[in-house]
């Protein structure tokens, strides 16, 4: 809904549109053009970084659906990401099957299945207890994966060939860029539509007050499990795509730190907001590189060179803390504040009920 803009729907089609106002349409068009043209100006390294962000978008969307919308705190992300990666590895190595789309679909299916499994405790436990029980899944999957890798894979991991669509092989960063941009855009669109559908409403209701949700007739069990399945399928999909992008799968990558990183994305970006997921994914992925870049601009005194890495970690932490002091509800709230300032200017606030 457009805030205080005097923009009114005159048909149901308008009311149902994702991009309802002219401003949204124009900015979407501008964004699409910018994304399409970026490879012409960006270096390969920059494209590579944006590719990482696109993969992170998939993961953070998955986390936001589960934690931000359905309100089920889960720490099993790295496990599901690993499940996606190792499903791809298994299919490539054991079955000799490496077509991109079927492998990614299979990884999603495995993710959904595991999601149903990890979601089962959510019917009984909430909050921190649930978080710990999902952590168990991570341990189990990573243990299984590392056993497999030790026995059958190489020490460096399992190599996954570059995907190709007919004659077009996805090889360079530029080709990956276009593929990942399309995948991320489709996933984002799917999530936007999902959270404003009946299912998304049910999730938000359960997140807010599960008793009232049940009193409204929402079957809690079904929708909690569905949230776990959808989120896990998306996480595993991200894992499989990431495996293709990296070109190999190795168990070291799927540490608990990965879960924390993705958790940081949704929290920094803004819980319960798709835009927040996008912002969080980009900021958390790029921030270390930006800090790195900034540090490198200044000449480092010789005796401090060894400490630069620590310095970067400190800078990362300080930036996150500063951001939370500035706006506790995440980047998306910051954006909302800026937006409403310009929409209301020169007024300070709008009359209640005009929204």
């Amino acid at each position, binding site marked *: 809904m457009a805030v205080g803009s005097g923009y009114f729907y005159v048909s149901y089609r308008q009311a149902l549109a994702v991009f309802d106002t002219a401003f949204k349409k124009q900015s979407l068009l501008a964004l699409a053009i910018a994304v399409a043209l970026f490879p012409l100006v960006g270096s390969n390294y920059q494209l590579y970084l944006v590719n990482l962000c696109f993969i992170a978008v998939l993961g953070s969307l998955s986390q936001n659906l589960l934690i931000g919308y359905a309100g089920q705190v889960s720490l099993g992300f790295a496990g599901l990401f690993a499940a996606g990666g190792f499903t791809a590895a298994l299919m490539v190595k054991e079955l000799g099957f490496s077509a991109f789309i079927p492998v990614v679909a299979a990884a999603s299916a495995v993710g959904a299945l595991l999601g149903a499994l990890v979601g089962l405790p959510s019917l009984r436990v909430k909050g921190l207890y649930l978080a710990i029980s999902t952590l168990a899944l991570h341990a189990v999957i990573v243990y299984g994966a590392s056993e497999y890798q030790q026995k059958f894979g190489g020490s460096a991991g399992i190599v996954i060939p570059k995907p190709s669509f007919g004659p077009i092989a996805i090889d360079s960063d530029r080709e990956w860029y276009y593929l990942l941009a399309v995948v991320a855009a489709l996933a984002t669109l799917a999530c936007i539509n999902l959270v404003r559908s009946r299912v998304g409403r049910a999730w*938000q*209701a359960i*997140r*807010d007050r599960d*008793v009232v949700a049940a*009193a*409204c*007739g929402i079957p*809690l069990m079904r929708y909690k499990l569905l949230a776990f399945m959808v989120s896990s399928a998306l996480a595993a999909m991200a894992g499989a795509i990431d495996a293709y992008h990296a070109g190999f799968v190795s168990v070291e990558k799927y540490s608990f730190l990965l879960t924390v990183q993705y958790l940081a994305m949704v929290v920094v970006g803004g819980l319960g907001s798709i835009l927040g997921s996008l912002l969080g994914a980009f900021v958390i992925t790029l921030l270390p590189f930006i800090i790195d870049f900034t540090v490198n601009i200044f000449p480092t005194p010789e005796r401090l060179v060894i400490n630069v890495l620590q310095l970067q970690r400190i800078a990362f932490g300080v930036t996150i803390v500063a951001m939370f002091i500035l706006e506790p509800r995440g980047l998306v709230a910051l954006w909302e504040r800026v937006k409403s300032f310009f929409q209301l200017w020169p007024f300070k606030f709008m009359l209640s*009920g005009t929204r």
Partner: protein
Amino acid sequence: MSTSQPLLRVHNLEVTYHRKLVAIRNVSLVVPAGAVVGVIGINGAGKTTLLRAISGFLPGEDAQITEGDIVYQGRSIKGLQPHETCSLGITLVPERDKVFPTLTVAENLAIARWRGDSNDGKGRRSIIDRVFEWFPVLAERRGQLAGYLSGGERQMLAIAMALLNNPSLLLVDEMSLGLAPSVLASLEERLRAIKEELGLTVLLVDQFASIVIRMSDHCYVMENGGIVFDGPPERLLAHEDVREFYLGMTDSAQGVKSYREVKQYRRRRRWYG
């Protein structure tokens, strides 16, 4: 209460929490169709447990019905899930957290229409318009987050949400909680009008006895997990104990009784009741 088949009949109910704490015992009550039945009792008397048992919220609280039965429209609803009792037409207005605070009023109402018949677009519009007629303030605050509503508005929203469920039996838990008497009076009046208009049956549970006595056709008094008294509101009003301990009225010349006497009364009831 000689109707051939009441809408709801609770028979000899016993509810146990955590397998060791018996919250209510031997509770039987009858809710005839179209009536307002009230239950009064102090904190911890088992009123909310009774409503939880009827609407199916016990398993989530690690409690279970250990004896007795609940019969709704001629079939047992013991052990049904909350959404199942809801689809039978039993809707609970919970005691505290009764709205979705991070969603707007309009979104709250949209979720409340979860069960609404989706094939008839017209019917759904008219019920939401009627809800806005009954509670004009909700129409005004449609775009506002429910978390920013006042207590009275929240209660209105909760009742509106319950009505959108298209209930036959409305279970209202502690409607008076945290409301000023004047707000409560207007809410009471509106609920009565809505009840007449929709032909609802209401089970009203409250510790604020005067509202229950004003609104209901038949009253039950709960104490220590059991029903100690029941009858039409006039008989309750005439009952000396009820007058004294729930309404704070006294007929005796020495005025209001002391706290000590109240304690003694309660102890007596516990022993003999």
